[in-house]
């Protein structure tokens, strides 16, 4: 069996953006975007992490690989045909990474997943000061806020943010993702307003069920 994610990871590390894009586009002929994100690109990035642990590459290499991976995701974003929305109500989501956080690939994938489901998406990127996010939030008034955090010591930052955002007067749902959610569970942060999302499949499931409640509450 061919290991797509390893092949792709090496194209990333070699800075081969064109080849990587071709490779991905070929995969997309037979597979949905979700498969590409969850079962190819994410494992490719984790595999790059394993290579670092084996002392085969450095963080500088990871930067290059991240750049290529980012390029691929951006490219797919522009190809994305927006879901036809004959109903006028388009739910809104705003996504950002916590302050100082530089891991944003997963967040960007989440943004595209929302987009593919016909949501109105504002992706603000990583490393955002809370005041900045807040002013954007008040302008856009999203139904859902997506936050991502990777590093293990982010817990207190995350708690502060959740505390702050839970008090927004229109009561948006807060989705927490990223490696923190994956490896540390974070289940004690959960409530009926705060949902911890393991991965994009989980997000997709939530989108099927959770959206109902959003339509019901806002209409």
């Amino acid at each position, binding site marked *: 069996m061919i290991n797509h994610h390893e092949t792709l990871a090496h194209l990333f590390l070699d800075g081969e953006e064109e080849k990587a894009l071709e490779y991905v586009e070929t995969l997309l002929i037979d597979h949905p975007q979700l498969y590409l994100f969850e079962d190819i690109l994410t494992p490719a990035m984790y595999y790059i992490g394993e290579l670092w642990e084996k*002392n085969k590459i450095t*963080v500088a290499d990871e930067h290059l690989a991240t*750049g290529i991976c980012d390029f691929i995701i951006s490219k797919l974003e522009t190809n994305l045909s927006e879901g036809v929305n*004959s109903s006028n109500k388009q739910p809104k989501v705003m996504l950002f990474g916590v302050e100082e956080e*530089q891991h944003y690939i997963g967040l960007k994938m989440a943004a595209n997943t929302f987009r593919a489901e016909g949501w109105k998406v*504002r*992706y603000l990127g990583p490393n955002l000061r809370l005041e900045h996010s807040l002013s954007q939030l008040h302008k856009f008034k999203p139904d859902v806020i997506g936050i991502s955090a990777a*590093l*293990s*010591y982010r817990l207190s930052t995350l708690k502060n943010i959740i505390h702050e955002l839970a008090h927004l007067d229109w009561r948006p749902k807060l989705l927490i993702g990223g490696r923190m959610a994956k490896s540390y569970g974070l289940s004690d942060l959960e409530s009926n307003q705060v949902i911890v999302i393991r991965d994009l499949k989980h997000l997709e499931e939530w989108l099927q069920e959770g959206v109902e409640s959003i339509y019901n509450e806002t209409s």
Partner: protein
Amino acid sequence: MKRVEQSLPLPFYVIDKNYNIVGYSNEAEEELGLANNFLQLLDEESHEKFQKMVRPETIKVTVEINFKKSGGEFQLADLHVLWDSDLHAKVLVHLKGNQLQKVTESLAKLRSRLNESNLQLLEEKEKLEEAVKQNNLLSAPFIELNEETALIPLFGNLTEEKLFAVEDHIVRSAQKEGIDRVFFDFTAVGELKREGITVLNNVISSLFLMGVKVKIIGVKPQQARELKEMPLPSELNFMSTLQEAIQKYCTN
């Protein structure tokens, strides 16, 4: 554990095979701090890598590793490790923070600028879409000529999008008590789109069901030919001009 009296201007440790720190340089103490065991200075998620790579069998090795800083942040460094014997190793630490940081920061800045212009474009696009929607809504005003009769002049190309936008408004307005005749005026209509006419057909069928009579006015000969090929109720009535229609139905 003792301070090594070598004047190496870099953080430097001596460790034993259990990674206990047995010696250190001034810089080590100042920049990275002290602990009984070297692992305590590292991020937990760097432990495994360190333990795998740093062992007496590998006499000389360079490993990239994350140190924990007091505030919780991490500090990236290359460790140059040399085992003197099975018992002791010298560890020279080369902190990489500042080198990488500059590049990282510029990259991040570029990325966020790109993202901002993306956002601006997106906002403009959404404004345009909103304008189109508004425009569509205005393309089929419901004008009551008298208590029984209403006129709906249609404007522009009859696209599916446009008719979706107006169908609700038309059907709802026609529900008003007394309205029993509606004129659709095609005088200002441009192109007919099959999908659009399909939606119009639904609207007209709903009006029929409500007992409202429908007349189509002002169809150009070319359009009439096209309409024949499209799905419209056969019992539909056509009249050539609005004037004619008004004369017939609105004067008494």
